[in-house]
């Protein structure tokens, strides 16, 4: 079944009886060439690109719950490529270009909306830093615009420009950034992968790896043993728990990150806005809810829920930036597990075990990376060499001294 405007009209006239299931629910086979652990956005995108771009024919995606039920269903759906460092920025720009063509590629409405992002500037030093970042963005073809205070007043007049402590002095804008519908991304990749023969196996938890003579032979799961020539682990948030079963210690701590959504409001916020003096960012979903978040709670956690001090801190940031947010009622708050790495950047690499590959350590930024993480992880799985945009995301960068520390805070995961 192919989605099109014509199909929508036809189904509307014939009682919507022609829509079919988006993906099958197959029983697991005894063995596959490639098994992907984790049916989130990254895992499904990996399977999709493995089948589509790299021509792999025997692939399974194993998901312990239902697809997209982890961080793919818990993030704040922002897509952007406004990084600074050379190890990061080309990768995120590659992701941005994949986002721009995602819906045509998967024939699925993932509601990609390039509604821009504005990072606000509150001091002269911050303006210098953002000018430098904007230049780095332009070097990678991502585009960037330095905004004056008057520009911002025209675009988003509802901000508190004259906060006594943190007046707004300008901003850095990426017009190509925006948001996407998180579930739509998962479903689009799942459907596309399924159409190309990938088995998506839900309710199938990996409980161990079968490793002999330093080579992986398959995975033990809650639905029996599944053999595999190659296993790709893509379970950010639970990386520690899963890789422990392969005997690996990682440069990662698991933390909890909270997010919030208000009741539905009329269209208010045009794009994504980030507060430069605290950690607060906000956008508005197509349903009308203000979607916002801030810092991680800051201590190791596998609990998928946070505590009140961070809720208070995030809302204080929101009130300082746009006092009108105080009139909106908070509808929901939730927590997701994030792999916080030692330099705040991800890992897409082989492991010391032959046939076992790892994609994780996405810190709080995994959603925007979904297409490129899938593409580059598929490249690594299929060719055993890193994709040209992901050569820096190696395990050994820590021992070699090539860390990618955007924030410059060192090996302290809760500060990234």
């Amino acid at each position: 079944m192919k989605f099109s405007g014509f199909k929508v009209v036809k189904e509307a006239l014939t009682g919507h009886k022609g829509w079919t299931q988006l993906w099958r629910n197959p029983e697991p086979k005894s063995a596959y060439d490639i098994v992907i652990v984790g049916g989130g956005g990254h895992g499904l995108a990996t399977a999709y690109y493995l089948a589509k771009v790299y021509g792999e024919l025997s692939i399974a995606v194993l998901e312990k719950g239902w697809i997209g039920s982890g961080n793919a269903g818990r993030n704040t759906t922002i897509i952007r490529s406004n990084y600074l460092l050379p190890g990061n920025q080309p990768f995120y720009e590659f992701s941005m270009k994949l986002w721009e063509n995602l819906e045509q590629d998967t024939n699925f409405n993932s509601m990609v909306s390039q509604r821009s992002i504005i990072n606000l500037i509150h001091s002269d030093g911050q303006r210098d830093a953002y000018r430098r970042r904007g230049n780095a963005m332009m070097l990678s073809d991502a585009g960037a615009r330095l905004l004056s205070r008057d520009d911002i007043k025209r675009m988003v007049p509802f901000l508190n420009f004259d906060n006594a402590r943190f007046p707004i002095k300008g901003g850095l804008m990426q017009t190509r950034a925006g948001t996407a519908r998180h579930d739509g991304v998962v479903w689009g990749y799942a459907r596309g992968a399924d159409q190309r023969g990938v088995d998506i196996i839900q309710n199938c938890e990996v409980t161990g790896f079968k490793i002999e003579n330093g080579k992986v032979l398959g995975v033990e799961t809650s639905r029996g043993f599944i053999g595999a020539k190659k296993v790709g682990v893509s379970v950010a948030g639970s990386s520690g728990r899963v890789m422990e079963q392969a005997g690996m210690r990682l440069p990662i701590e698991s933390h909890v990150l909270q997010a919030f959504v208000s009741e539905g409001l009329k269209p208010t916020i045009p794009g994504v806005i980030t507060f430069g003096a605290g950690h607060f960012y906000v956008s508005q979903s197509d349903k009308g809810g203000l979607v916002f978040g801030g810092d991680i709670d800051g201590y190791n956690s596998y609990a998928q829920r946070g505590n009140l001090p961070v809720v208070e801190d995030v809302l204080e940031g929101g009130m300082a930036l746009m006092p009108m947010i105080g009139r909106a009622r908070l509808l929901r708050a939730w927590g997701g597990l994030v792999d916080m790495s030692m330099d705040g950047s991800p890992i897409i690499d082989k492991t010391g075990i032959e046939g076992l590959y790892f994609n994780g350590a996405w810190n709080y930024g995994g959603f925007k990376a979904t297409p490129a993480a899938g593409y580059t992880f598929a490249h690594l799985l299929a060719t055993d060499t890193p994709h040209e945009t992901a050569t820096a995301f190696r395990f050994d960068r820590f021992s070699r001294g090539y860390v990618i520390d955007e924030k410059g805070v060192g090996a302290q995961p809760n500060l990234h």
Partner: protein
Amino acid sequence: MLIPHPLLGLRDSQEFTYLGDASLMQRPDASAQNAEAEFCDYVFLRDNPAGEHRELWFHEQGDRSWLVVTRDTTTHEILGAELASDVKGAVK
């Protein structure tokens, strides 16, 4: 979260800053043959357990003592707290 400080009783975790795994108290021997590899593991790798975790909290807005707090990372339940100096002394 309330942390049962051994000297001050229950204190709000907001008074503390968090460092990480309590094993950070055991620095490798800098004069050992493989010190470079040992320090690399020490600085960058973590056990990161789901469940009981012994971790360092600094009572920054209190008596400025370091505590070793035992906490369940799957529930946030705090199972105990000791002065880091006592833990260090016991190891020696």
